[in-house]
């Protein structure tokens, strides 16, 4: 399939039992693009994100990431997932390992690096998120913001082609949000392709190339942040933007 998009998802449907969560979503993302997905809770934005690396199995549709057909039964999904980093709302760091252990596990077991090489790469990744001095700490000894940055390091250590962020700052105390956004901004500047589900509108405004508004399992409208925030065409978008800006 000829495509110049690094992510090309078409007609994605997802049913959970009788619940129709995604009702035919198309999402194409260019290389080095930062796409922000916003929308009310239950609009399907997290589900869409989780379909992209097949943590969630779409009911129908097609997904091609970096030229790999994610839904083809012949695709080695574990190999494909290495190229797609994911950051979760609740960090999901492994509590029984140090920060460095968290970052090196997949380097060793999936990428097949030896211990020394994995640790060297792991330290570089921790350095990039500003936590070189926390390598030997366990998640329990780190703040929420630091844990999320370790989680980001765990993903970038594998040199992904795309990074998915699922509400990366929603579980953080307000004063810790800035450090995580700072790291995301750095990634952005290094040219990482990023798809972010989040309500950090300030960040969206000055970092995103495109904002996608979803509601009720569909993409309602999308465009540059200024257009979506200042001049939304749809009533539902206007109502949503109005709501979150009042906070």
């Amino acid at each position, binding site marked *: 399939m000829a495509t110049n998009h690094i992510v090309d998802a078409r007609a994605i449907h997802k049913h959970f039992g009788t619940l129709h969560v995604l009702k035919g979503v198309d999402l194409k993302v260019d290389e080095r693009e930062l796409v922000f997905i916003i929308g009310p809770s239950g609009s399907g934005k997290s589900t869409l994100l989780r379909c992209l*690396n097949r943590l969630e199995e779409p009911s129908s549709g097609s997904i091609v990431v970096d030229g790999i057909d994610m839904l083809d039964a012949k695709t080695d999904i574990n*190999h494909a*997932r290495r190229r797609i*980093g994911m950051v*979760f709302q609740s960090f*999901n760091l492994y509590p029984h390992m140090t920060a460095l252990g968290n970052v090196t*596990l*997949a380097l060793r077991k999936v990428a097949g690096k030896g211990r020394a090489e994995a640790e060297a790469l792991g330290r570089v990744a921790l350095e990039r998120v500003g936590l070189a001095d926390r390598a030997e700490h366990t998640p329990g000894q780190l703040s929420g913001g630091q844990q999320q940055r370790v989680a980001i390091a765990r*993903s970038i250590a594998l040199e992904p082609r795309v990074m998915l962020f699922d509400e990366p700052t929603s579980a953080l105390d307000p004063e810790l949000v800035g450090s995580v956004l700072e790291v995301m901004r750095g990634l952005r500047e290094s040219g990482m392709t990023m798809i972010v589900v989040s309500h950090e509108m300030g960040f969206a405004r000055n970092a995103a190339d495109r904002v996608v508004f979803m509601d009720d399992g569909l993409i309602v409208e999308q465009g540059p942040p200024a257009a979506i925030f200042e001049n939304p065409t749809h009533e539902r978008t206007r109502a949503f933007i109005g709501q979150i800006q009042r906070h």
Partner: protein
Amino acid sequence: MIEAFFNIEIMKAAWPIVLTGLWNTILLSLIVVPLGLLGGLILALLASIKNPLVRWPLMAWVDFFRAFPPLVLLVLLFAGLPFAGLELGGFACVAIAFFLNTGSYYGEIFRAGIDSVPVGQVEAARSTGLTRMQAMRYVVLPQAVRNVMPDLLSNTLEVVKLTSLGSVVAVPELLYEARQAQSITYNPTPIVMAAVIYFLLLWPLVRLLSRLENRALAGRR
């Protein structure tokens, strides 16, 4: 009274016999506990496959052997199998009976431990490309075992105590040897010796268990 239960002369005479029994009890435990742990781990890993074709037979298996009294199982194996042309001997019968019985208990403990690990842990592992088995081995199991350590230890305590069932099928463990000594000397002192040895053997484990349980409670607060 002291003549009957704490007879020093008898203690001296019975000591070598009781000691043999102690070594056999330790040996039996060292075989039976790892065997049960292994059986339990296999059951729990199979149970984590959410497929009804695996799940239902597995549940039936675990339920059956948890409901089956281990002593009855042991006697059945020991006295019954020879009629099927299979003479295994006491030691092997104990090993098999315990594998079936305690394996099911250990299996339920491991399963509870695996269930106690949040789904997000597996999702994080899988999102970095780890396979299902790798995620289980490196991410889920270490946390699962830590979460149920008090239960594993408590069950192990029960298993060591249950090794005394071996005496019924003539496995020369501690209780069996003590009873031999008792019948030779016509004096219950060897039984008292066995009781004291069991206590000394298990008491450190009981202390450790209490500490783990207190720590788990403190962790929850």
